[in-house]
């Protein structure tokens, strides 16, 4: 059996790769939310001045977040041996254009909102295996680009369902290596695709909850832990309804759930009327920076960070298919 494998789905990183720095950039709405002081950059508008499209601005968000992360680490783009990035758009154009800018060796990722954790897991394993010195991971989403691709034109006067989540305009970039100091990535649990027949694009939290449940319980079982062995289990991003569904699933198997929370619930205030909370790759990517800051300040020590992705395609949804979902987890520990 592979020496770093625990059980079937969990990888252990004995060499303990570390997140040495990060950068986050968000839109105006996120900048008014409860985490406003935690972001490195907040835009006045969903468009950068001079940009002609939201796609351009999303790309700039991702690029700036990585530039901020590089700046904080005292690195340049040339120092990245591997760049892992992804977003929600067709052919992950945001990631591709960012990678074009940085000129670093690049793997594009798609895991919907699980993209960031997917990147952290792959990055940590490649580092652990000794192929690279520095890995950059980015993920982003944008309200305008996501809505026009997945739902309706943004100016269309439709009423959203109370179960719907609000796509976060934001990006987060993280740099991992073995030599720096910071929060360590200790293990990763790679999730399986789960689909319990939800086909409503206005209720993705419910669709994703079984995937999150499966990955969390596999992680607990393979590492022989209980939910209480983690200071927090943070999902990104199930939203309010999805989080309740997850808690129900966990509780029905006898797990305690009082330390389970969700990035989509952290990023907005109820008064912002987003209905079920935030979603999109940018949500967990922007919120993780805040969690890491808390961990460095010793507010908590061990976190299970679970990226949950609804792998939704408008084409398959219109053809009557349900939404396949996946969740990946990384265990983060502050030393």
């Amino acid at each position, binding site marked *: 059996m592979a020496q770093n494998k625990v059980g079937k789905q969990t990888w252990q990183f004995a060499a303990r790769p570390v997140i040495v720095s990060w950068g986050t950039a968000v839109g105006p709405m996120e900048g008014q939310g409860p985490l406003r002081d935690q972001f490195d950059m907040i835009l006045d508008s969903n468009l950068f001045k001079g940009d*002609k499209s939201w796609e351009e601005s999303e790309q700039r968000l991702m690029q700036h977040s990585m530039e901020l992360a590089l700046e904080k680490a005292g690195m340049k783009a040339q120092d990245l041996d591997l760049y892992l990035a992804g977003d929600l758009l067709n052919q992950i154009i945001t990631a591709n254009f960012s990678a074009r800018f940085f000129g670093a060796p690049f793997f594009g990722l798609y895991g919907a909102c699980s993209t960031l954790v997917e990147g952290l897991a792959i990055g940590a394993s490649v580092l652990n295996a000794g192929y690279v010195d520095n890995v950059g991971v980015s993920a982003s989403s944008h309200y305008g680009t996501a809505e*026009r691709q997945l739902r*309706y034109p943004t100016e269309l*006067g439709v009423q959203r369902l109370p*179960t719907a989540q609000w796509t976060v305009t934001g990006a987060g970039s993280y740099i991992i290596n073995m030599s720096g100091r910071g929060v360590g990535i200790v293990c990763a649990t790679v999730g399986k695709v789960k689909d319990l027949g939800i086909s409503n694009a206005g*209720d993705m939290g*419910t669709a994703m909850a079984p995937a999150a449940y499966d990955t969390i319980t596999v992680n607990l079982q393979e590492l022989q832990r209980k939910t209480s062995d983690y200071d927090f289990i943070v999902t990104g991003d199930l939203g309010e309804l999805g989080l*309740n*569904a997850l808690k129900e699933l966990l509780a029905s198997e006898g797990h305690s759930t009082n330390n389970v929370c969700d990035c989509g619930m952290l990023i907005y205030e109820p008064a912002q009327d987003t209905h079920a909370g935030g979603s999109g790759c940018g949500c967990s990517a922007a919120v993780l920076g805040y969690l890491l800051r808390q961990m460095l300040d010793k507010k908590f020590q061990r976190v299970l960070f679970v990226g949950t992705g609804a792998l939704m395609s408008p084409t398959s949804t219109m053809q009557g298919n349900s939404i396949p979902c996946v969740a990946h987890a990384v265990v983060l520990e502050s030393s």
Partner: protein
Amino acid sequence: MANGLEREILRRYEERQGLLPGWKEMKQEDKTRVQKEIQDDHQAVVAWEAKAAGDEKQRAADLKRLLEQQQQDFQQIDALEYQKKTLKLAPRPAVVKNTILAFVVGGLICTAGQVLIDLFSSGGLADKDASSAASTALVFAGALLTGFGIYDELGRVAGAGSIVPITGFANSIASSALEFKREGFIYGVGARLFTVAGPVIAYGTMVSIMIGLVYYFWK
């Protein structure tokens, strides 16, 4: 040998079909075991199909389909159970509040339309022309408010109250035009102008033709 395999897999298939009624109550680990058995059988049939020819190949293909269907049937039960469970957690739309808001806003838009008709009539337009002029004015207003970013805020509050009147139709076209103008005037605006309004136009035209025919022959 192939016949033996086929019989064996069919026997197991039938045995599993017997589990369908009680599937809901089964333990997760038993469910996982059954699903794995289906997968293994499917894999065995794939191997058989690869070697078989003619009639036998067709029988293998049919058996594969049968197993896939069975796997889906079991998953379907789990899916329905889950949906039933989570439906209870879902917040209900505020039907009463939404209905009242839709009624009020829709009513106000229609009242504005009536005021416009009366104004145009008193200005000397014939009744039919006054209605056309009022519709034109409302479409213009809907498009203008969409451009100012106001109509989608209105729609969030009013729902059907601002979708059903002709201003909503204008909104659906103007919002698509705004959305897709970045892809250019041909493949963007031109091709996708009716992304939202298209079905209304297509089926509206068809129904009006049918009603026209009925009217023509039954007059």
